[in-house]
């Protein structure tokens, strides 16, 4: 009896599978509703990547050109292939007159980055995040080396160091 049962069970499950795929085929054949293909060079002006897309590492800046990077270089140490270089500068606190270190240039070599995300996880102040830009080709590879903190930007007030 289990022999017959196995056969009918098998046929039933096969038909169930076919009904699922058949439904998708009919829908997409006639309406293209669920088609996820992006016809890339045609829609280059309108194509927008989804939020979780790992296009490049960018640094968040608010409207006053302030960022949250303290220059702690946790990201530099976390990066497995030396993509990030942190350059420091000395700033003098006008009230106390004491000098201390702050970020000068957060240098990011896009050409070396594997988009692993370790730097973003390592950052204690969430200063860096994923950008959705996907169109990176250049004719000159020095253009792939970017400074993430914008010129003239400074540390946001209240960022815990």
């Amino acid at each position, binding site marked *: 009896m289990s022999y017959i049962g196995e056969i009918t069970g098998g046929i039933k499950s096969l038909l169930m599978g076919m009904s699922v*795929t058949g439904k998708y085929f009919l829908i*997409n054949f006639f309406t293209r509703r669920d*088609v996820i*293909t992006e016809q890339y060079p045609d829609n280059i002006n309108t194509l927008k990547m989804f939020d979780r897309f790992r296009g490049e590492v960018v640094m968040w800046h608010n409207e006053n050109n302030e960022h949250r990077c303290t220059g702690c270089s946790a990201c530099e140490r976390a990066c497995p292939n030396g993509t990030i270089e942190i350059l420091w500068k000395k700033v003098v606190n006008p009230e106390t007159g004491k000098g201390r270190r702050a970020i000068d240039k957060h240098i990011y070599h896009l050409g070396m980055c594997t988009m692993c995300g370790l730097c973003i996880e390592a950052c204690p102040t969430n200063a860096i995040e994923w950008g959705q830009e996907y169109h990176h080709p250049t004719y000159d590879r020095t253009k792939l080396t970017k400074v993430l903190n914008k010129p003239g930007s400074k540390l946001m007030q209240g960022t815990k160091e």
Partner: protein
Amino acid sequence: MITLSIFSNIHQWLLGVLPDESTVHVVELITIALVYLALFALTGLFLVYAERRIAGFFQLRLGPNRVGPFGLFQTLADALKLVSKELTGTVKADKFLYHLAPYFVIISALVTLSIIPFSQEIQVFDIDIGIFFFAAVSSLGVIGIFLAGWSSNNKYSLIGGMRTGLQMVSYELSIGMAIVTIVLLSGTLQMSQIIEAQRHTWNIFQGHISSLIAFMVIMIASTAETNRTPFDLVEAESELGAGFHTEYSGMNFAYFFLAEFINMFISATIIVVLFFGGWLSPFGITDGIPFMGAFWFILKVAFIIFLFMWFRWTFPRLRIDQVLKLEWKYLLPINIVNVVFMAFLVWMGLTL
């Protein structure tokens, strides 16, 4: 031979031009062979295109749509690329067998084409043992695949070829048994008469449940016979590179590829002839209109091919032991019982 009136005109004309009848015969045969070759190269190309396009829709993609309208010329471009490629091979391959193998596969596929009745008039070779001829010739292709696997001197090819031996020889039995079931029902082996016997009802309804079982068995066995997913462990890409044709390139590879699709076409036509009345229109609605036979035939074949493609993009690949278990423990016993059952039905006159 083809009996359409336009062709008999050509025949008369040739008789007038050429000296004697045997020359005319040879010229006609060569012409038909060339026409079939061209036609089926195109059919193969179109089937590859259809497969990729349909696969696209099953997988929520678009499939090829760049070359020509709806990407129709994509496979033509691919074929041109293959033709222009160098024929490479392994140093330690068995050269003679290595170059012979693709021709076994493609020729056995093309020879089978000759018995296919496209309509009442268009059939090249209406031999009286037609369906038996199909069973005999189509199994020649296994030798080609086996040779390819063996002579490439590559372990992936060898495993692929061995699996073919196991799989195709096993499933040949099931196809044969299913064919026997229908032969019992229609009482003839000749293609045109099998179709003629279905004029009032198609075979799939004539034999009640027995025909239905035979149909299901032959669908499964044909899928296995043409090495398509879920039975594609002959060339299981993830395990064996490309299986038996790993070492082939250029046109030799294209022959294998084309033969696969032509074989699928042939399997579909055999199923249509056996179960769905070949070129007969449903309920005889277009009787008397010329060329409608070919239209219905192609329509039915297209549907069966679509079913094959549907299988392919739904079911996951079987393991080799599962393949053999399916054949020897399920399909074959069911089939034998089914043949006896059909014989009983025919004996008692219970068929429709």
